[in-house]
């Protein structure tokens, strides 16, 4: 596996598949302020005016968290389209588009890197690839990351950003929840720290498996986090959901998270957590 140099030059095209749109100026989704794109990127894709957190790609996430270079794991895993699935579009086409958009073969990048000098296994989900959904490749890569963490006794950090299990791989996707949770049971028994970072959005089968199983659960501000999506809940209870429902701050209040941390403070906070948990 190659060690990739941390790039200071402009991000390659697929890296820009973040929520910060193209152009010299961007409009903040939250405060509607017109901002210099560069000012937003220099601020870790956080709005300098209102601290809205733009969604970022998996690779940018790794750059923001790792001290320097990281070693990517299992880069070549690719779905075989096991159900030969097709809806209004063939799943094989969706996979191809996802690859073109993100430069990855599926919705997760896993790596070994260091955080504040601590060697760590880090896996980050890629929302730009079919909504960060979890099929067999994401399941396998997370399971392997967990196993790597256990075998080398390195802490594990998983950054979730996903609409949940991937429908186009059917029940196989559902079973990845059990597969990863079984691997995490072993990591738990081995007493290796696992930090789960939940970002906007983290819903469905991802929340209902590894994202909620961290020894420490941390979320970025304002992230949508839940099991059922807000629309499904509204249809079920036939009423509007209260403001802030299923957002990070709501989950913190309801005891599901240890902390909500601004992206600009994240690395420092995660490193501090690791120091408190490691021997």
């Amino acid at each position: 596996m190659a060690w990739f140099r941390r790039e200071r030059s402009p991000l390659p095209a697929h890296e820009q598949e973040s929520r910060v749109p193209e152009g010299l100026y961007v409009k903040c989704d939250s405060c509607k302020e017109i901002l210099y794109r560069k000012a937003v990127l220099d601020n870790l894709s956080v709005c300098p005016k209102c601290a809205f957190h733009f969604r970022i790609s998996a690779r940018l996430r790794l750059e923001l968290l790792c001290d320097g270079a990281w070693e990517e794991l299992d880069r070549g895993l690719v779905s075989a389209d096991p159900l030969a699935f097709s809806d209004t579009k063939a799943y094989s086409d969706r996979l191809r588009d996802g690859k073109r958009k993100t430069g990855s073969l599926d919705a997760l990048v896993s790596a070994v890197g260091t955080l504040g000098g601590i060697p760590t296994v880090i896996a980050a989900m890629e929302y730009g690839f079919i909504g960060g959904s979890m099929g067999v490749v994401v399941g396998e890569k997370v399971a392997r990351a967990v196993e790597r963490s256990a075998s080398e006794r390195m802490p594990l950090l998983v950054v979730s950003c996903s609409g949940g299990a991937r429908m186009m791989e059917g029940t196989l996707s559902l079973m990845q929840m059990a597969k990863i949770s079984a691997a995490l049971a072993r990591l738990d028994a081995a007493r290796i720290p696992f930090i789960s970072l939940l970002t906007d959005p983290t819903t469905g089968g991802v929340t209902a498996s590894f994202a909620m199983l961290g020894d420490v659960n941390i979320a970025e501000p304002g992230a949508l986090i839940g099991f059922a999506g807000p629309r499904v809940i509204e249809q079920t209870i036939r009423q509007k959901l209260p403001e802030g429902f299923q957002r990070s701050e709501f989950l913190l209040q309801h005891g599901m998270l240890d902390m909500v941390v601004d992206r600009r403070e994240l690395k420092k906070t995660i490193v501090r957590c690791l120091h408190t948990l490691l021997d």
Partner: protein
Amino acid sequence: MPEDYEAPLLELEKKIDELASQPAAPAVEAEISRLRGELSEKRRQVFASLTPWQKTQVARHPGRPYTLDYVNALFTEFTELHGDRRFAEDPALVCGFAFYKERPVAVLGHQKGRDTKQKIYRNFGMPKPEGYRKALRVMKLAEKFSRPVITFVDTPGAYPGLDAEERGQAEAIAYNLREMAALRVPIIVNVTGEGGSGGALAIAVGDRVNMLEHAVYSVISPEGCASILWRDAGRAPEAADAMKITASDLAALGLVDEIVPEPAGGAQTDPEALFRTLDAVIDAQLRELTAVPPESLPGARHDKFRRMGRLGTEFLETT
């Protein structure tokens, strides 16, 4: 309301009823008997070639046995336990201890209701976090007292409501998945009706996973899938087909261990026959699993789920 697959059967049944209401005569008797033969042959044919969407209808049939029906038929001295000791009791998931052929076991499963009042009481078989937490509490008791766990899965899904989200539906399911994987007693899972996504899986991490012939088990309901991918819930039959949710599909993918045959016409036509078949399956599996040293169960269970999604079959490794 009759489902489409039932139409030709209902027509024959109607004819038989009409004849039966006529004054008795040898010719009428002969015709009735001929039609009965035709009906049973027709039923066999229809049920042997149900589409995935039709199976979804059968799996949801209100006449199908529910968890407490299995408990009454296959177990004795059922002692129901209630509450998660954290927040509430959840009638959508029933748990307890019982005897299975003189052998003490823990038994639990989703519970649907038949009439309107029961449906509401059971929340249509959709548990809230307290249901999953109660289930885990009982499974931990089973581990403490070395009782095998037998579960029955039949739910549209975990309840997607405001209160369920507030109390951590996702966390409750996730925690069950991890803890079930490590439980040091045998776990036998029976998907009897609807295996609705994470809400089903939360009690389905077992050493053996059985599935009734006409049950379905899916990552999202066909209607949910159709409304997201096709933007039209009416395309549910296509979604059911595409997602491969039937017992035979899932056995082929290595996600289900044993398909339990149902009587012609489905479990609801002859529950007693189904109970006998399922009884034999559970009995044999329980014998196998109790012969295994308990400390080696979690390892084997981990490996079983670890293999779901196979290199070279469901995914490939490219360079």
